[in-house]
């Protein structure tokens, strides 16, 4: 067990190194944060030339007596942007290890504070969505495998494929229209007043997310169950006179959960930061919408901080999924 965890920690570190390295590099190639920090001042290329002594800094902004390049130079130094990319990456990495995720270029707030504020909302949405998905998919998956080819199975197949082919945002908009705007049964946007209002206002978005995943889970579970039901031990259980319900839930279900929990792990990771469309539709100030804003504004520290959190979440969740495998199948424990 200790070795298993140690291997996972090494894996986490490798994943984080590669993910942050790629993110860091991509951000620096795609945009210059300075433009967003100091606003539309003099061209940065121009200042580079000034700095190199190729020309005079003769450009001054309207409301400032100092030269633009002077301001830009200060900002560069303030945010550490005057160093080469590689050096900045390792500085950033060093700070991360000490627990410092940096400061937002935009709001000047510590990134850890921003994440602490946004992440719980996204996590709550993710947890609720997964609970709904599992609560819907497992009973329906079991029943449709039990009655494979019959009316209920066919109806759920159609429903699943329907749900799978509707994009999230379309379903989200429809649900929002019908349940929140036209009928006002449930709130249309996030309400941060108390834990109760938070859960209440997340029911709609979590259902939209959950149903989409439930459709995938139901398909996977049904297929795996149909394979398991061909196994001799299922015939044996029937020969022992056990009830269908007992056979489905106590014999067939557990060995049929592998695909489902694999996808569960992956989708949980994706949901931590990936539900940005739904967060947008239902006005949830979560980490998904935060990342979008930060990317648009070249707010490197926020983007990178979120990437670190999401990647960690991904690896940690899949670590628990691996633990689940060993619970599901004792043969995995042995090897």
């Amino acid at each position, binding site marked *: 067990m200790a070795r298993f965890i140690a291997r996972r920690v090494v894996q986490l570190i490798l994943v984080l190194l590669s993910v942050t390295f790629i993110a860091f590099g991509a951000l620096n190639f795609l945009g210059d944060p300075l433009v967003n920090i100091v606003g539309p001042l003099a061209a940065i290329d121009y200042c580079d030339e000034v700095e190199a002594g190729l020309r005079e800094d003769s450009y001054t902004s309207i409301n400032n007596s100092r030269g633009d390049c002077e301001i830009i130079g200060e900002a560069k130094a303030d945010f550490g942007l005057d160093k080469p990319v590689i050096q900045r990456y390792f500085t950033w990495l060093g700070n991360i290890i000490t627990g410092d995720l940096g400061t937002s270029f935009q709001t000047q707030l510590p990134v850890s504070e921003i994440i602490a504020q946004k992440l719980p909302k996204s996590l709550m949405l993710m947890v609720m969505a997964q609970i709904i998905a599992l609560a819907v998919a497992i009973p329906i998956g079991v029943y449709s495998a039990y009655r494979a080819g019959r009316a209920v199975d066919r109806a759920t197949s159609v429903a699943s494929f329907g749900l799978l082919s509707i994009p999230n945002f379309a379903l989200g908009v429809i649900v929002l229209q019908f349940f929140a705007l036209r009928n006002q049964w449930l709130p249309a946007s996030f309400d941060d007043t108390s834990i109760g209002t938070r859960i209440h206002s997340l029911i709609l978005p979590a259902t939209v997310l959950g149903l989409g995943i439930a459709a995938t889970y139901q398909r996977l579970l049904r297929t795996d169950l149909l394979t398991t039901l061909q*196994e*001799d*031990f299922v*015939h*044996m*259980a*029937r*020969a*022992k*006179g*056990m*009830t269908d319900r*007992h056979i489905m839930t*106590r*014999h067939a279900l*557990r*060995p049929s959960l592998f695909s489902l929990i694999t996808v569960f792990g992956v989708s949980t990771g994706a949901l931590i930061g990936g539900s940005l469309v739904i967060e947008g539709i239902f006005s949830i100030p979560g980490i998904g919408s935060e990342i979008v804003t930060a990317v648009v504004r070249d707010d490197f520290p926020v983007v990178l901080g979120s990437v670190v959190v999401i990647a960690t979440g991904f690896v940690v969740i899949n670590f628990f999924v691996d633990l689940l495998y060993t619970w*599901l*199948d*004792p*043969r995995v424990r*042995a090897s």
Partner: protein
Amino acid sequence: MPDPQLTVEDLYVRFPTSRGTVEAVNGVNFTLEKGQMLGIVGESGSGKSVTAKTLMNLLPRTAEVDGNIIFEGDDVRAVAKERRKHFWGVKMTMVFQDPMTSLNPVKRCGEQITETLRYHLGDDKATAKKKAIDLLEQVGVPEPSKRVDQYPHELSGGLRQRVVIAMALACEPSLLIADEPTTAVDVTVQKRLLDLLDGLRRDRGMSMILITHDLGVARGRCDDVAVMYGGRLVERAPTETLFADSRHPYTEALLRTIPRIDQPSHTRLEPIAGRPPELIDPAEECAFAPRCRYAQPDCLGTIPPVGGVRGQHEFACFHPANTDRGRQALDANLAAGQTVTGLQIQANAGVN
């Protein structure tokens, strides 16, 4: 004479498929007396496993079943709903071929035995576990109190099959169906398991149906042996009669495929020519005729009915082996060098 424990009458089982209807079992009749052991022998596709699954109500929903199965006075196919719950697994139970797959890999061995006891007999957890340990001891599992907490993958094939047998015997059934119980284990383990089953059967006065493709397995253990071919029962006789004086050419051919200790060593074993019969829309003829050394024109016209001495030695053949009619047919075919179906045959086949 009391009614037999099990009577199977005119059993037909068909499976509709996209290629046509598979006629898996075609009018099988047999009876089993209490405490007896009946061997059902046949190759793959002969309908022996389907017959067993029909008895156990294990056929897929698509199967079309016709005929009567009377077990201890009950029509098995119409057991009342309430009694159904505690019928299979309690009165009649089954052991499958492969011990590696017939135990649930994710459940402890003990739990797989106790779940039947708890459901059918209403035993509490502790009683059921104690009984499970006793059962494992009876079937010769060493260290049974340790084994109940182990998972199937921690046991060898032979041990697993013993656990399966213990599972099947948990509720003290009066009929045990064993479908090739030793095919998947080592030869050395095979004999021990068969002896164990035979001993348990005698101790408990339990009847047993032993399904096998190996005549040698049936010999010395079964009271009667029934031979199936193409979904039909082609011969049935007390075991020693069947071995000494078989009537159906298929039985005779099967006997030639097993080595015998009374023949000189290096006697060539004779394979049966041709392939097993097509079960989709079979022709109205003896299913064995295309492979039969005795085949005559009348074999192709109609399906031979079951004849012989009812309850003693029954067989379904127009030209039975070891009879004058059979010898004439064989001589005629040998003289022609082929049978009516075009099967090439030659004299002294099987003798070096």
